[in-house]
């Protein structure tokens, strides 16, 4: 299996699972405006998934389409980080999860626009525009909830405390990345973490929130070892294609 295929699947699965999580808010948003905003962002993620997994299928060269990859793999073949599969809980948790992810995704895409792989650079360029807006949206909410009422402050602070343990994994690198790094396809995740931390600190400061102590950090998603949530997500995500193979509508 090529390193590029693996990398594209990692990125694609982040978008796929986060997009699915956000789509669960459809019809349940706290207000109509936010309901639409979250489903818009969900659709952006599904769109990015399509580009990334389509290209992954081409790189793999076994004739698998983006749909095959999205709907017909087993749980341990999914490579998303644990953060994106965590439950929506309340709006504050969803926005905090989104912010922690967006703050990583934006500088990542900025890096990848300079990738030596032209196709990946093009996908990054297109997705970056969307991601800039996602970050603006989630950051504004984190600030307002953190610096809002006592209750909203407490809820997002708890969300931050609970989600913090999944943030190191955003910068996970392993053997798979060595070749890609050497060829200038991807770039240093240390640089990435620096930009992320800067953004996180700025926003959390304005939100009057406190960064938790860096305790035990969880990982596993990039290797296919997921939390219990992913199974339930996939059951819903894959049901139609498993029950009615090749179904279209």
């Amino acid at each position, binding site marked *: 299996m090529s390193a590029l295929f693996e990398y594209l699947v990692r990125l694609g699965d982040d978008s796929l699972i986060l997009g699915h999580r956000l789509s669960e808010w459809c019809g349940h948003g706290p207000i109509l*405006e936010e309901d639409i905003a979250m489903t818009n962002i969900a659709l952006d993620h599904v769109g990015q998934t399509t580009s990334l997994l389509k290209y992954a299928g081409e790189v793999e060269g076994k004739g698998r389409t983006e749909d095959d990859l999205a709907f017909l793999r087993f749980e341990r073949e999914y490579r998303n980080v644990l953060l994106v599969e965590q439950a929506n809980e309340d709006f504050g948790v969803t926005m905090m999860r989104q912010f922690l992810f967006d703050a990583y995704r934006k500088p990542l895409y900025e890096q990848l626009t300079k990738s030596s792989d032209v196709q990946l650079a093009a996908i990054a360029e297109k997705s970056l525009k969307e991601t800039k807006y996602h970050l603006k949206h989630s950051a504004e909410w984190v600030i307002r909830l953190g610096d809002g009422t006592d209750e909203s402050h407490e809820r997002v602070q708890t969300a931050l405390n609970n989600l913090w343990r999944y943030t190191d994994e955003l910068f996970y690198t392993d053997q798979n990345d060595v070749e890609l790094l050497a060829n200038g396809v991807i770039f240093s995740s240390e640089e990435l973490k620096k930009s992320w931390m800067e953004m996180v600190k700025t926003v959390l400061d304005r939100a009057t929130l406190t960064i938790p102590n860096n305790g035990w950090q969880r990982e596993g998603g990039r290797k296919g070892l997921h939390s219990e949530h992913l199974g339930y997500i996939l059951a819903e995500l894959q049901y139609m294609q498993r029950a009615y193979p090749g179904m279209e509508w």
Partner: protein
Amino acid sequence: MGARSGKCICGEAKNEKSILIKKDFSKMANNEWPLWEVFIRSKQGLSHKHVGSLRAPDAEMAVENARDVYTRRSEGISIWVVESNNIHASHPSEADSLFEPAHSKVYRHPTFYDVPDGISHM
């Protein structure tokens, strides 16, 4: 934004700020955010046009919400929002005196000129 930090200041200067707190509560009496009117410019050269309204906690979020609610199908290139409270409207009961007198004054329309041949868009 800043309601929480605002509260802390209130504790120190109770008298001065108590009115502000009351105001805040009255604003949230029905637990809803203020209403905003949304104006969209569909393309360069056209004016902003009223497209609808929405609720948002402040102007910045109102622009974001407007982006999501009213421009998701490429309807615009620029957004204005204004809090509905700030719109002052003519009263329907005055419609007769305000608008009817204009009906009988067709000469105010620039339609009594012969437009020379070759001049288009008039």
